[in-house]
């Protein structure tokens, strides 16, 4: 039976900074190459979210004005459904602004903290004076061991996958993880969540947050497959579901280049 995957792209017309749509290009193509029937649905301002309609949410980052504008809309029209879905294990990937917004507080460009969506227990604050004003540059991180172990179960045939993720960060907000949230990875080069913690990103259930642009998924195909796998496992209620292996020569070559050059 061919699998099908529905991906919901949140506020594509508002949150579309720094190549974040590259993540969707990659999800769509990889599904196509693996024979998974993939549908991407935009969900934007003034549209009501219904729970149980999607397998995968993606939310990118936006400019300050846009981020502030969507918070109200999110609370009124999306919050309930997305919280119910993510509590039930639906995959959610938030990058940069999309990651910050999922937390309790996030940061606007003027340095003001604003209330976030409160779906995962992280908080983003203004950098203190002893911290660099902006975390910017190439980012190389080591995936946390639980995630990496699970990642290796995704493929039908065991394969060698990098322990690293690579990307480019560009944020001034400093993110701190609260109880119940695990870091996605440990920083090798660059900053990640904040200038002092040495960790990057967050995981709560199947909600993943990351500061990685670059874009994130093109040079980290193992992470892309992992998210697709998690989404399908939940949808088809089959914890043993696995994916075929694609030839990722170009992807891993680009990945390895960044690891070697910028670590």
């Amino acid at each position, binding site marked *: 039976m061919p699998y099908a995957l529905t991906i919901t792209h949140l506020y594509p017309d508002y949150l579309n900074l720094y190549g974040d749509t590259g993540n969707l290009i990659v999800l769509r193509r990889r599904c196509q190459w693996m024979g998974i029937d993939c549908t991407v649905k935009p969900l934007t301002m003034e549209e009501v979210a219904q729970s149980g309609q999607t397998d995968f949410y993606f939310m990118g980052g936006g*400019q300050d004005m846009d981020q502030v504008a969507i918070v109200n809309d999110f609370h009124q029209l999306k919050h309930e459904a997305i919280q119910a879905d993510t509590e039930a294990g639906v995959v959610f990937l938030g990058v940069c602004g999309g990651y910050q917004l999922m937390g309790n507080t996030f940061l606007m460009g003027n340095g003001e903290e604003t209330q976030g969506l409160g779906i995962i227990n992280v908080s983003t604050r203004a950098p203190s004076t002893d911290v660099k004003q902006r975390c910017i540059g190439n980012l190389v991180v080591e995936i946390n061991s639980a995630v990496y172990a699970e990642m290796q179960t995704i493929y039908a045939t065991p394969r060698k996958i990098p322990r690293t993720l690579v990307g480019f960060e560009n944020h001034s907000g400093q993110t701190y993880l609260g109880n119940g949230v695990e870091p996605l990875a440990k920083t090798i080069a660059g900053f990640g969540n904040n200038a002092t913690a040495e960790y990057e990103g967050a995981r709560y259930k199947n909600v993943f947050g990351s500061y990685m642009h670059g874009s994130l998924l093109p040079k980290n195909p193992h992470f892309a497959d992992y998210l697709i796998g998690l989404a399908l496992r939940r949808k088809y209620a089959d914890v043993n579901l696995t994916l075929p292996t694609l030839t990722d020569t170009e992807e891993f070559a680009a990945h390895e280049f960044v690891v070697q050059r910028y670590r």
Partner: protein
Amino acid sequence: MNQLLLIPIIAFAKLLTLALRVSGRGSGTALPGYLVGRYFPFVLKALVSQIPVVVAITGTNGKTTSQTMLSAVLDQAPQAKVLRNKAGANLSQGILSELLKQSNAVGRLDFTHAVLEVEEATLPRIARLIKPNIIAVTNLYRDQLDAYGEIDRTEKLIRDGIAQCPTAAVVVNGDDPRTSRLTQGLDNATYFMSLAPEYARFLPYEGKLNSRIPGSQGLEATNIHINEDLTTDFSVQGQINHETVHLPQAKTVSPGFFHVYNALTAIAIANLLGIDGATAIAGLKTFKPAFGRGEILTRQQGDKQVNYRLLLVKNPASFSLSLELLRNIPALKLILAINDNTADGKDVSWLWDSELERLNQANIDWILCTGIRAKDMAVRLKYALDVPPGPIPAEESIRQIIDLSFKEAGSGDTVFVLPTYTAMLEFRKLMGKTLDVV
């Protein structure tokens, strides 16, 4: 201010420029401007105010081309003596350095027009000093993502700059939603440059295409035809200074839709300065594209000759539009050269905002990726192409890619090269071209 005060400062700057040149520490472009600007901030104003007409051109893409086109047009007028800053020297120190260089020993400038390319964030800082008669804004795109962060901020900075010059005429891209609203709420006379909607809708603007308010002034390009040699024919019509403009046979040798906007901008400004349309069109024909903007370099070995046509890419918009141009090329041979140095933007995420998918309509012979981020480019292509043309060569060394492409191409072939800024400089250098053109 007292003209006498200028003399020692000018002498100092000229001496410094000379010393830098003799000691081989660069061509002396920025440092004199930096020092003088810092310690004698009144000098910029004192120098510019001697030039009767000042035009400031800003915006993300096309500053240099618009400036060069306008200079070519003004050169047609017999009395005109035009001062312009060098491509890229568009911060206040670069502009000041050029003025210092061009002034005589007592600080006199003998020019009728200054046509200045001004970096976006610099405009509000120098607008009051240079008091431009005309401000042109080519377009506003996200550019070099890590340089400023936010395009909203840039838009605001330019508006602040314009607001400081209430009597300046403003020439904007009338299709770009960001530039076309710049003078909303301001009293400046505004002229909108636009393409007929059937062309404008293909352009990657951010947000809804602006639609011209009936009765507004400006120029529109129609019947745009891009020829196989990438020159562009078009017609111009509209209203400037409440007079009708109709030019059925305009041409630009620079390739592509962006350059039609640049040409319209040059024609409109010329018109505002009292130069008629026919003269403007004649001037445009003498215009030679600046390096990297459609320039052709040739490599010869024995009987074999291969042409390389350079189209600079610096952000998603210019990348997408260059690809659009290449759709009509038969048996396209293409080199994509991507660096991630500061001048290119260190974050290569923008490759994913560029519409490489447009290549699916092109007739591709082969594609080679090169530059520091060649491998990122190859991944982007792999995901863009519906039918991947087999493994895509990704070789960091631009020198090796030039050799390989020369081998692959037939004699007389044209290879299209889409480089980022520093990749372009390197490519030209390897082809035996030095930086100083213009």
